[in-house]
């Protein structure tokens, strides 16, 4: 794939409203970023997917943020020996998510019997193209419609296999299949690369406010802090961690690196969040804390206050964390020593093993350890 941005007549200013004509057939979802479009930049990209024009248009805001991408597709669709041009513009979001399609003025989509699409069929096509998990991903076209050696055929004379009947517009199997693969093919990957290359903390914060969870997940998957975390971005990541969507919360935890956890304030907030997140995230959060540059005293103490509410496995992870950072604060050790009385021998044993390695001079702690030894002879 060739990607180049040349200055030769490729950059032109264009108002988006001028590009989208009112009397065209158009199905477009809302963009994540509702900022006004400012410029459209054209990138020649060799997608190798047999369309006539291989130019990817990027619509930018005044800030230079990519608001959407679009591409004009031209391909032939044949039936009964007669072919007609599939002429359509596909739109993607900043994050590569499918946004919609638009037909040039006077153009329409047609089915196998050359009948134009009806309104509900356009809406159906729009819904099908929005399904990123469509089974169309797993098939070659001649598997979907057996007997279609020539792939540019929208045939109903051969029955479409039942596994995909719900994923195509009836009578337009090829059109649906072709468009779906264009939406989720090389163009989407290119868009992902292009936005990721300009994903600044400010843009990341803006995208993390998207109501679409997949946009937020995309940001967390693609953001590279390079060691810099703004306060706004840290707040946005914490909001994601507190989400009841597991994928989003887990990725938010994973994105936090040593830079994120550098300050005492953030570490304290981390511990507070840890106490409230669902169980499946707790171990991840402790493991992530182990990657921070150090564990502040207040964070270590705050964490020790959670010990009595945790199970033996999480307690073990926290004790490992303390051991890794050589934490020997008396307040922390006192909290740990309280676990020696736990009726669960697994928990008490973990606490004893940790305290034994620390060998604290504190007489109360030593007394508790002696009592534990006596009871567990």
């Amino acid at each position, binding site marked *: 794939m060739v990607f180049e941005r040349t200055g030769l007549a490729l950059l032109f200013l264009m108002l988006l409203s001028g590009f989208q004509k009112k009397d065209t057939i158009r199905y477009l979802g809302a963009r994540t970023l509702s900022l006004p479009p400012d410029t459209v930049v054209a990138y020649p990209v060799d997608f190798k997917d047999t369309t006539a024009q291989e130019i990817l248009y990027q619509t930018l805001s005044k800030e230079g943020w990519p608001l959407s991408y679009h591409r004009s597709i031209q391909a032939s669709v044949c039936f009964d020996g007669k072919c007609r041009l599939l002429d359509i513009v596909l739109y993607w979001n900043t994050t590569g998510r499918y946004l919609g399609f638009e037909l040039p003025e006077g153009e329409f989509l047609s089915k196998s019997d050359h009948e134009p699409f009806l309104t509900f069929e356009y809406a159906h096509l729009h819904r099908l193209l929005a399904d990123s*998990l469509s089974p169309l991903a797993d098939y070659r076209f001649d598997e979907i419609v057996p007997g279609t050696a020539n792939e540019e055929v929208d045939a109903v004379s051969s029955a479409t296999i039942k596994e995909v009947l719900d994923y195509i517009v009836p009578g337009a199997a090829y059109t649906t299949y072709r468009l779906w693969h264009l939406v989720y093919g090389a163009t989407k990957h290119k868009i992902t690369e292009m936005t990721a290359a300009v994903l600044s903390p400010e843009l990341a914060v803006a995208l993390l406010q998207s109501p679409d969870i997949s946009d937020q997940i995309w940001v967390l998957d693609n953001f590279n802090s390079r060691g810099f975390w703004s306060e706004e971005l840290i707040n946005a990541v914490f909001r994601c961690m507190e989400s009841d969507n597991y994928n989003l919360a887990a990725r938010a935890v994973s994105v936090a690196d040593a830079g994120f956890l550098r300050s005492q304030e953030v570490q304290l907030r981390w511990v507070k969040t840890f106490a409230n997140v669902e169980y499946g995230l707790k171990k991840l959060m402790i493991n992530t804390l182990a990657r921070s540059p150090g564990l502040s005293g207040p964070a270590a103490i705050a964490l020790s206050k959670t010990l009595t509410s945790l199970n033996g496995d999480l307690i073990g992870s926290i004790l490992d964390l303390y051991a890794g950072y050589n934490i020997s604060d008396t307040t922390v050790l006192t909290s740990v020593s309280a676990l020696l009385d736990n009726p669960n021998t697994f928990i008490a044993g973990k606490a004893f093993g940790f305290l034994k390695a620390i060998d604290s001079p504190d007489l109360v702690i030593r007394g508790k350890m002696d009592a534990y030894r006596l009871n567990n002879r």
Partner: protein
Amino acid sequence: MKRRSALAALGSLSIGVPSILKGERLAAPYQISRKTITTDILVIGGGTAGVVAAVQAGRAGKKTILVENGSQLGGVTTTGGVNFPGIFFAWGKQVIGGIGWEIVQEAVALNGDQLPNVSIPHGRQHWRHQIRVNGQLYAMLAEEKVLSAGVDIRFYETPVAIRFRKGGWEVITVGKGTETTIQANQVIDCTGNAFAASIAGFDVLREAETQPGTLMFKLEGYDLTKLDFKTIEARYAEEVKKGNLEKKEFLNIAGVLRSKGDNVQHIAGADSTTSETHTIANIKGRTSLMKMLRFLRTLPGCENTRLADVQNETAVRETFRIDGHYLITHEDYVTGKVFEDAVSYSYYPIDLHDDKGVIPKHLVEGVVPTIPLRALVPKGSKNFLVAGRCVSSDRLANSALRVQASCMGMGQAAGAAAALASSTRKSPLEVPFEDLRNLIEEHGGIVPRIV
């Protein structure tokens, strides 16, 4: 000189005096090690459910022994090669969590993999919410978890006698050079085949025809985009017609090539219950694969097809189920009935494989089936639980319940119920349900609630 020594040694043998070469020493004949050990909880079977049950029991502070007849933990997920132990999320929410999820989550992270985005509904492609794990890594992680929970693992052992005595169980296991009597207050059968329940004398159920098994393998050495599928399909049909290949073993030759061998074979009647039945299943699986491999290498474009990997065992889908205090029906499953004693969710389409393949029947949006504790307890039993695919259920419900995530949920519930029962010297069904709920939830498990 060496030859002369060897001849001298042979001469010595002939008159009954053992010859000893340099560096060797004479040892007494090997003795079978016989011993008696005691524990609070004995988990039989270290597969998907057994690992979780043992970890839960150990973390609850109970002395726990885990007996496994193979060489590693994880069962179908590891030895069987079905390394996609889903599904843990339903309709955008996590429904199975806890210890099983913890191992999956760590296996994903340690392998540098990423969880699928389960926020997007899977539609009819439930496998898109499956989570692939590195099977061998999963086995080692499971072992690490079990050991760190203080559980005593006994590999290569299998029970041969299980008797209820003096308010507890006496289980005799045999292994390589071992015969062990294990006295346990509670027993959890996680063999997948209700094998321990059967030995203990509890009734088990089985259909005349069971789902086929699958030997998992991986193919490489061909370029899918360059294959002429029409010719390949015609050649396959020809070989099937001649009787050289069995259509019911590989229903779709294009599927074999496209999936590169992943979960594409069907071995009729595969049964892992006993050494004899499991031997047959393994041999059938390998014989079938060898025939297919040889055939593939005759196809244009597939001449260099190679086996990149093959599992050691044919994975098994269905054998015996217990006759429990409650039998989960297909109707219960597809309507998402929430039982008062529900201890775990289950989430999977009705997925009955037969000689025509499988067409999963998906659950209606919002439905998440549940598993009652009573389905884990054999009728007439005391201090005895099962977890995993031998859960008391009808065949259709079982075709969904058998999948690993559900087995993990059951394993955790069984481990918790056994731990509480052991602490209070009761039978699992006598344990106060709120105590059970609290213990499972404390360890991250998700217990359904009646709304």
